[in-house]
């Protein structure tokens, strides 16, 4: 079976660091002809324009040709074709497949029936490992190290796939975690136990402000209305953790704010002009990280 990237758990710490190192090399030298005889397929069973454009930009910058679809409307999938059959077919056309699919576990299954590497670009609510790696690349790039940092996670910590994966990846390093969320969206106990087993320090809090002065990375997430049974509950908490520029005084000079985007109202636009805002650069880092992932899986770097 070719090497695929399905879950952040598939990567050893050394492999993660290797990918981040490659990403830095691609950032230094973003035009490459490494893949000019290769075809990359991006098959998106549900739309995600941001992720698809990022992967396709990465493939193009590596010199590859890109094929695929961005939703299933005009494909044989709507005629009832199984995921297995789609993957079997596409793996005869492409050298690597980037897949996004609404069902949990779909990417793992795809990797078991594919003859070429699979990159999981989101399988339902389960994993999205390239997001985690680009978050880590952004942390490393802005802090020069992944060790000894305070990572403050804010917002929807219960359902947020990106925070769970990032937590597990950063648990490989010496990280202090602060979880800021309303009780309805608190970090699930399985992740707290996971940190506990690794002797890592974490603290839970309902208030963001007291934690800003000690934070190195402030990881904001979107609080989504559909997570709440009672719409009144959503109204109560939706703006509780909205970050404004005035809240960033005082803060450490190295503090950076990350957000997986798109944001709604959890970061006020006056934050965009502060030196702490990093979420747009974070998105650009995604391209270098995805170049690194593709090159790594194809064994070219």
């Amino acid at each position, binding site marked *: 079976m070719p090497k695929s990237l399905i*879950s952040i758990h598939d990567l050893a710490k050394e492999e993660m660091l290797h990918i981040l190192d490659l990403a830095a090399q691609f950032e230094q030298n973003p035009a490459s002809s490494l893949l000019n005889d290769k075809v990359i397929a991006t098959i998106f*069973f549900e739309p995600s324009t941001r992720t698809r454009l990022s992967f396709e930009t990465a493939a193009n910058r590596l010199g590859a040709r890109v094929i695929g679809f961005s939703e299933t409307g005009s494909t044989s*999938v709507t005629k*009832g074709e*199984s*995921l*297995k059959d789609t993957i079997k077919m596409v793996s005869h056309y492409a050298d690597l497949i980037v897949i996004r699919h*609404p*069902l*949990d*576990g*779909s990417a*793992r*299954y795809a990797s078991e029936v594919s003859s070429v590497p699979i990159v999981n670009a989101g*399988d*339902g*609510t*389960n*994993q999205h490992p390239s997001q985690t790696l680009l978050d880590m690349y952004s942390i490393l790039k802005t802090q020069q190290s992944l060790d000894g940092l305070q990572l403050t996670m804010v917002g929807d910590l219960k359902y947020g796939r990106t925070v769970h994966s990032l937590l597990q990846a950063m648990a490989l390093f010496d990280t202090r975690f602060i979880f800021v969320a309303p009780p309805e969206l608190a970090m699930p106990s*399985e992740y707290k136990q996971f940190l506990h087993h690794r002797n890592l320090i974490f603290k839970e809090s309902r208030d963001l402000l007291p934690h800003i002065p000690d934070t190195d990375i402030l990881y904001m997430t979107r609080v989504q209305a559909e997570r709440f049974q009672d719409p009144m509950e959503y109204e109560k908490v939706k703006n509780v953790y909205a970050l404004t520029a005035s809240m960033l005084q005082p803060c450490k000079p190295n503090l950076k704010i990350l957000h997986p985007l798109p944001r709604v109202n959890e970061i006020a636009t006056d934050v965009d002009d502060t030196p702490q805002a990093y979420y747009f650069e974070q998105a650009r880092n995604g391209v270098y990280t995805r170049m690194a992932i593709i090159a790594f899986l194809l064994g070219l770097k």
Partner: protein
Amino acid sequence: MNMDTDKKLKVSAIKDGTVIDRIPPQSLFKVIEILGLDQTGHQITFGTNLESKHLGKKAIIKIADSFFEDEDVNRIALIAPDAKFNVIRNYEVVEKRQVEIPDQIRGIARCVNPKCITNHQNVETRFTTKKERGGISLVCHYCEKLTNAKSLQIITKSSAYTTDF
């Protein structure tokens, strides 16, 4: 418990075969199903809600002229972790086998996550087992979600999956 009366009580009916003991009563019919005993032509007798020192109440199954591989024995670990397989030859218990929880389980249980690929397409379920206070729980190889003992569902042939996508 006195070994001699115990032996006579359960075993007297079978000359050769297997007695499965210490089954939780609520798991009796699931055990029958998992081991495919509903398909067998051999003589089967079972009793349920019998007194048990270990479980309070228990069920037992006696199957004539049938013997089980370790793999079969361990297949019922999820729903009857304390079960014992007594191998009977010529009215005597010649071997006692304890159920062992396998590290990996394939195709027996259903994933509790309704959005899991295994519940939508023709994909055999696969889990790693995890021992916890409340019993055994399963981590899905595909969706990575946890199925605990309480929400455990055993797959029957007719309900394996529904096709969409």
